[in-house]
């Protein structure tokens, strides 16, 4: 049908002044051809009379020449929903009613606050934990522990920055152990709760009860261990409980944002014991990991979001997974409210979403300063010729950051750090890339510099 009209249009065009043709025949089409009546759709009602009264013959000729059989030609305004009633539209219902995406988010929030007395939240499972290169080792260990609580890796010391999913992972372990061994006594407790619990028991003169409560457990999960700083009493109590549980072959799981040896005022004996089973970390997720996390979250909550929008969030949130998820939720809510798809919302530039991780205009000078400060040297030292190992490492870290954070070219980086050859720069960056995988301290240092740059 459309081909016939295109054919006819070509014939009409030959007979008309191009500007007239452009005005009157643009956006026309054949809507129907029934019982010998051809209906031609036009842009709006102002076109009907003109075509009918002035161009009827031309149209009729052209159609005949295109071998179309008809008795009559009618004209009608093209319309997606003719008539004067109002069906649905996106903006409408979404503004007040709670839409699907939002509902799911609210549901999640609600469930997060429900607890079962053992501190565990059933919401956290391994099924909804997205595994990527940044956390696969920790997840592997977790699975081993679930299979053999207390017998494989004990204690399990997990560390990493805030909002990377440590709590999720250890809660999932607790839930899973409990599911497979319903008779087990599992307790999840953040260290500050442990502390206040202890104070409480001392006040009420029930130190024994407190001690019994914890030593009877089959699995003790301690969160945010770094908060134990300067709390000597609880440290001692924890050390005793730790020893008892450990000797009895019970599972102990501890998380912290840094290694025990880096926490001030933690007793050396305790620090070394905590890492007997090894220290496992969760790193910052890569771009791909972040995309995978968001996609999983979207699928889980049933929200519709374009890949580009996910990539946009993943690209712009550089801090941690918690921020990533909060930006994601915000975007979904906004998009429901505005009646735009998440991507349209981003493209419209009208998102009120802020990106905590978005770099403030960072310059190479700032990076060099921050690195120098972290290594306790001056920028001048860093950009000098010294080959003292500390300064050299700082220089290489600066090169690494200039490359990865600002995408500088090797020659430019060489110039920035005091006129080094591009091959020196390449070597330096490769060295850091390699070392970062082996050296916890170096990685911590680099993360802390990054935080300062973006913070």
């Amino acid at each position, binding site marked *: 049908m459309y081909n016939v009209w295109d054919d006819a249009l070509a014939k009409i065009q030959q007979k008309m002044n191009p*500007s*007239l043709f*452009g*005005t009157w025949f643009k956006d026309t089409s054949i809507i129907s051809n029934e019982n010998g009546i051809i209906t031609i759709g036009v842009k*709006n*009602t*102002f*076109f*009907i*009379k*003109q075509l009918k*009264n*002035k161009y009827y013959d031309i149209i009729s000729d052209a159609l005949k020449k295109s071998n179309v059989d008809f008795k009559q030609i009618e004209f009608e*305004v*093209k*319309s*997606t*929903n*003719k*008539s*004067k*009633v*109002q*069906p*649905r*539209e*996106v*903006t*409408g*219902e979404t*503004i*007040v*009613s709670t839409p699907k995406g939002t509902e799911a988010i609210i549901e999640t929030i609600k469930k997060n606050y429900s607890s079962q007395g053992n501190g565990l939240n059933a919401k956290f499972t391994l099924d909804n934990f997205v595994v990527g290169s940044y956390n696969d080792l920790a997840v592997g260990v977790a699975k081993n522990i679930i299979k053999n609580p207390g017998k494989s890796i004990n204690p399990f010391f997990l560390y990493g920055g805030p909002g990377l999913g440590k709590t999720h992972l250890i809660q999932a372990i607790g839930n899973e152990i409990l599911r497979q061994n319903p008779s087990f006594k599992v307790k999840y407790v953040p260290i500050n709760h442990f502390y206040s619990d202890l104070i409480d028991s001392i006040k009420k003169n029930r130190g024994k009860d407190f001690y019994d409560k914890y030593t009877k457990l089959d699995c003790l999960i301690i969160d945010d261990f770094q908060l134990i700083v300067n709390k000597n009493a609880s440290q001692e109590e924890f050390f005793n409980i730790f020893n008892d549980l450990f000797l009895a072959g019970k599972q102990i799981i501890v998380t912290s944002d840094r290694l025990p040896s880096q926490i001030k005022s933690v007793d050396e004996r305790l620090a070394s014991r905590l890492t007997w089973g090894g220290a496992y970390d969760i790193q910052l997720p890569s771009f791909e990991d972040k995309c995978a996390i968001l996609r999983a979250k979207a699928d889980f909550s049933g929200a519709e979001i374009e890949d580009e929008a996910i990539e946009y969030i993943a690209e712009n949130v550089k801090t941690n997974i918690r921020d990533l998820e909060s930006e994601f939720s*915000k975007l979904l*809510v*906004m998009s429901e*409210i*505005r*009646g*735009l798809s998440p991507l349209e919302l981003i493209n419209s530039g009208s998102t*009120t*979403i802020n990106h905590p991780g978005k770099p403030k205009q960072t310059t190479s000078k700032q990076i060099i300063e921050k690195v120098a400060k972290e290594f306790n040297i001056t920028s001048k030292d860093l950009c000098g010729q010294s080959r003292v190992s500390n300064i050299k490492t700082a220089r290489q870290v600066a090169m690494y950051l200039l490359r990865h954070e600002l995408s500088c070219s090797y020659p430019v980086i060489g110039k920035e750090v005091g006129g080094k050859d591009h091959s020196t720069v390449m070597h330096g960056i490769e060295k850091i890339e390699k070392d970062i995988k082996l050296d916890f301290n170096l990685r911590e240092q680099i993360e802390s510099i990054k935080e300062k740059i973006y913070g």
Partner: protein
Amino acid sequence: MEIEVTQEKLSKALNNVSRIAVGKVTLPILNNVLIRVLNNKVSLVTTNLDMAIIDYLPVSDAKDGVITVPAKLLAEFVSNLPRGEKINITEKNNKVTITAGKYKSTINGSPADDFPELPEIEEKKAVIYKMSIDEFKNGISEVMVATSNDMTRPALTGVYFNTEDKTLAVAATDGYRLAEKILVKNAESEVGVIVPASSLQEVLRSINDEMDEIEIAFNEDLVRFRMGEVEIMSKLIDGSFPEYRRLIPKDNTIKLTLSREELIRVTKLAALFAKSVNGAIVCEAKKPNHFSIKSVASELGENDSSIETEVENEGKVNLNSRFLSDALNALEEKDIIFEFSNSISPVVLKNKKSNTYTHIIMPLNS
């Protein structure tokens, strides 16, 4: 063709119709005004193929005829003639001669055959409403502020004329705010059409003090406004308007009565400090009698102004100051009602006494 008409009348009519006869390069005839004389009635017609404006001039002893001439040129020529002058227009061989006392000019016209034929409304099949011109003008201007100019969502670039429970209402929204006004309370016939905001703008511009009633006629594709000597026709927007009635929250927990004047002042003050944050201001109701608006510009400083009013429930909401100003300017009474429930619920603004106008603003993400 021959007519004689006073400068004032002709100039006014030409200025009115020539507004839409500009800038059409593809079809030059659209830059012309059609002058038709029939039975001692002159009609001046222009169209841009989205709408048409027709002004009627009553004359006497005129000779029938029809011609088109460049609208802007004719309008400017006539408006520069001295006031009170009698103007004589004649046409011969597509040349239009305009004479006024010692002023005379001849303009090359084009035959009326080239001018597009305008659509018509069949009165029998049309839905027709009549109302006072003031009610119409106020109602339309009050909702027009909320129309969108985002051409990718055409349905929001117009004003939605619709009936429910025998009331005719007009509504507009851009997705961030919504305005509704009830125009006619005992409407017999039903309608649900979107009229382009640009056409309504022309209708509002064409309204003058001598008019007292407007007649609006709809068919499926067309709307026609008739008031005084002016008739405006416009296409309708093809698309569906959101079911906006469902967006209006019914039971808000926080209801405040505020002086409109005071609130306008406080909003303006807050807006000064809200420029760097896209106009975001924080409105807060505090017991027992405190309504405050705050804004913070990290570099400039901050503002915190308040109004005394009875507060039963407390709450806080972030709004765009421009949207709030627009809404307050659209409201008219001395006292207004400001309602909301929490920081994510829409804010509802109304006049205290009359309940025909409702304005809703979506809160900003805090």
